[in-house]
């Protein structure tokens, strides 16, 4: 949320010894650092849920059995000599309730406070222990938490925005220009933090119009370039998108959605920009839209976005949303061997034998050679936002126009479509019930499929490469939907935008839509409840 130090803020953590991929509504342990937290979240407390709080801090005592009074403040002052360590006490207390050891927390405290020195580290560790011991003593029923012993192997912890940034970094992105906009800013922050080490230029533009034009300018000049924003900022970029389309300049755009219209709910989530992105920009030109369902998918798809953008010289979107962007997931690993890196840009040595270079030369595939201005010997690189000839110079005649539309759009698009991967089918191989979704609903649909799989032949069909839609020759996903008794499209928007896209592109119409448009992500309980109306 955009509340920095005032107002109510919260953070939800869900853990399990099996893989979890979605949020739940019910809370098992509520750590309340203020009274507001209790008032707002008490209703979400699960059947055996516990609220830990400090009656002295909030000046109120709760007698009800689900409350455990832990003197965060007193312990912090007694042990750490500083009230700021209250949250370390609380963290220790939670671990005490769960019955795990404190080794991991100690290690984290040592890393987090490394710069603050040994004294701060030791005091925090002492506070954690005091909180831990207090909870062990005062929460006798807590051992039944069911948490298995911590494993030795470490997992990655990464959120969607970091995954997009990491994907860009590991795809050779050298230039990122953006105007800060929640919830997309994390991508810029990530890349800026790596700028010096890896030679990346991150430029904060004066507005989103400049941001996309800068990315285009840098890409034209020969480096992999990207911009990022949210819906309102992207509204300003659409003119530039069309420029990238006309000049065949490769760019990658991260559009991290928040609920609109206008300023909307800046720190909440929605999937309502799909059709906007799909139809944005005046005129007709190719584009590709990827919408990852997890940080891992975000990492690989950002890499794929660069590969497709550079290979076909088109704009490619990584469409995400606040929920995926800000959610941290654990993973075993990301495999760098799976990353693609092909340099399609040509320099002097690559252009040997090319007598006369023409930036927009016609070809079988519609793809022209992409030379780097100034690095391509005496060859000149010319392009124009006006309709242009093969050299890149302004024209008016109908014949050239037709050739250029064929080259730029009609020839490239079918080739791009062949590269799009089939949607993911998870669950029953010949399902009677199919949950269809795109982007960030991946995790919640997957868990709900698991919940219903005992009683239903149910599957999830998840699209992370949403435009162009994959070809049906390898996997006929429309036939799968037609054969099912029930196909339900699940979307975090009010109008079923992906269902509309499927219908427009394939003719398949969904009868059933599950929509959520309150600015919150689907949770396991809430999607399950919605589906009870059908199954």
């Amino acid at each position, binding site marked *: 949320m955009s509340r920095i130090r005032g107002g109510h803020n919260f953070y939800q953590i869900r853990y399990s010894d099996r893989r979890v991929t979605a949020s739940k509504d019910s809370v098992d342990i509520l750590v309340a650092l203020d009274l507001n937290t209790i008032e707002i979240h008490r209703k979400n407390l699960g059947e055996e849920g516990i609220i830990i709080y400090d009656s002295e801090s909030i000046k109120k005592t709760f007698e009800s059995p689900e409350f455990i009074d832990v003197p965060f403040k007193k312990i912090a002052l007694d042990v750490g000599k500083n009230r700021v360590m209250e949250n370390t006490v609380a963290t220790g207390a939670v671990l005490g309730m769960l019955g795990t050891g404190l080794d991991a927390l100690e290690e984290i405290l040592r890393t987090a406070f490394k710069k603050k020195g040994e004294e701060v580290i030791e005091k925090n560790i002492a506070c954690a222990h005091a909180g831990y011991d207090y909870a062990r003593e005062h929460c006798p029923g807590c051992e039944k938490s069911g948490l298995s012993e911590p494993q030795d192997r470490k997992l990655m912890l990464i959120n969607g925005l970091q995954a997009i940034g990491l994907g860009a970094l*590991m795809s050779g992105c050298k230039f990122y220009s953006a105007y800060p906009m929640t919830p997309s800013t994390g991508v810029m922050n990530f890349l800026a933090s790596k700028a010096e080490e*890896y030679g990346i*230029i991150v430029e904060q533009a*004066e507005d989103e119009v*400049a941001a996309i034009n800068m990315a285009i*300018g840098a890409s*034209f*000049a020969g480096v992999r370039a990207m911009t990022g924003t949210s819906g309102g900022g992207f509204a300003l970029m659409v003119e530039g998108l069309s420029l990238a389309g006309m000049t065949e300049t490769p760019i990658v755009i991260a559009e991290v959605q928040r609920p609109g219209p206008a300023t909307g709910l800046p720190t909440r989530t929605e999937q309502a920009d799909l059709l906007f992105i799909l139809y944005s920009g005046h005129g007709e030109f190719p584009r590709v839209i990827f919408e990852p369902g997890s940080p891992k998918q975000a990492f690989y798809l950002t890499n794929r976005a660069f590969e497709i953008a550079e290979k076909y010289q088109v704009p490619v979107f990584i469409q995400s949303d606040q929920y995926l962007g800000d959610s941290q997931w654990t993973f075993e690993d990301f495999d760098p061997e799976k990353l693609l890196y092909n340099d399609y840009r040509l320099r002097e040595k690559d252009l040997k034998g090319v007598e006369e270079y023409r930036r927009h030369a016609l070809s079988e595939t519609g793809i022209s050679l992409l030379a780097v*201005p100034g690095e391509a010997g005496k060859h*000149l690189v010319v392009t124009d936002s006006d309709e242009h000839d093969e050299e890149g110079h302004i024209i008016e005649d109908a014949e050239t126009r037709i050739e250029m539309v064929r080259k730029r759009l009609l020839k490239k698009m079918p080739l791009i479509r062949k590269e799009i991967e089939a949607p993911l089918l998870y669950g029953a191989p010949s399902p009677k019930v199919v949950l269809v979704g795109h982007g960030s609903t991946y995790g919640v649909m997957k868990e709900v499929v698991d919940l219903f799989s005992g009683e239903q032949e149910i599957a999830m069909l998840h699209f992370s490469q949403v435009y162009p839609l994959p070809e049906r020759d390898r996997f006929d996903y429309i036939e799968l939907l037609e054969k099912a008794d029930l196909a339900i499209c699940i979307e975090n928007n009010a109008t079923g935008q992906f269902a509309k896209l499927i219908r427009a592109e394939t003719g398949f119409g969904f009868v059933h839509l599950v929509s959520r448009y309150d600015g919150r992500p689907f949770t396991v309980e809430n999607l399950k409840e919605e589906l009870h109306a059908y199954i």
Partner: protein
Amino acid sequence: MPTFEAYEGQTPTWCPGCGNFQILSSLKKALVELGIEPWEVLLVSGIGQSGKLPHYMKCHTFNGLHGRTLPVATAAKLANHSLHVIAVAGDGDCYGEGGNHFLHAIRRNPNITLLVHNNQIYGLTKGQASPTSARGTRSKAQPFGAVSEPMNPLALAVSQDCSFVARGFSGDQEYLKELMKAAITHKGFALLDILQPCVSFNKINTFKWYRDRVYRLEEDYDPSNRLKAFEKALEWGERIPNGIFYKNNRETLEELIPVIREQPLVRQKFSVEEVKRELEKFY
């Protein structure tokens, strides 16, 4: 050495007598005299009659959108600062549609040259008032005459400590060429506002109107004095000064970005192998 002919491009479609012809010719001569080869120059233009200029030359060209020359030019310079990057814009293009980019380019101070064809009117869209049109300029779109005060790009640039601020006149080609050479060789963001008549739509600011008023700044004028420069920039009416109003030695954007100190961004190699260690930081 480059020749004038090497820069020869397509035949212009500008109106006969347009000031653009002299600007084009002066630019070619300036580049030739500076010994800059066509493949060492990137011209970035916008939309307007000025935006067509690169097509009538031969060099690297990005003819982008109306008003958006400066973001493209700035980023291209950051990507490859070994190129001479020259942005070509018009008064509507740069001071209207691209006004915000103009302000921020001055702040950033990339080492690029900005040539603004300032004819105080919209030519491409056939005669509407521009941000620099005199008050009272009548047109189809301004039936009561332009009611806004004209913008003073030079005073604005000086007020923001723009690295190089100059004005030329298409009718004084020799001086214009010299001003262009000074702008191109200046280290920092260089604004050269170029007065030119629009023979089809501007019936006020004609060739004669300019010729009667324009004069070259005195030999002993000191362009390092910002306050004096501001004063000079306010001079407009019976007499209109031309020349280098102001320049300073501000550090350029490229100089302030450490990652391109050794070599241009575009020449820096990448391999997945070198960034692999980033994955470990997430464990």
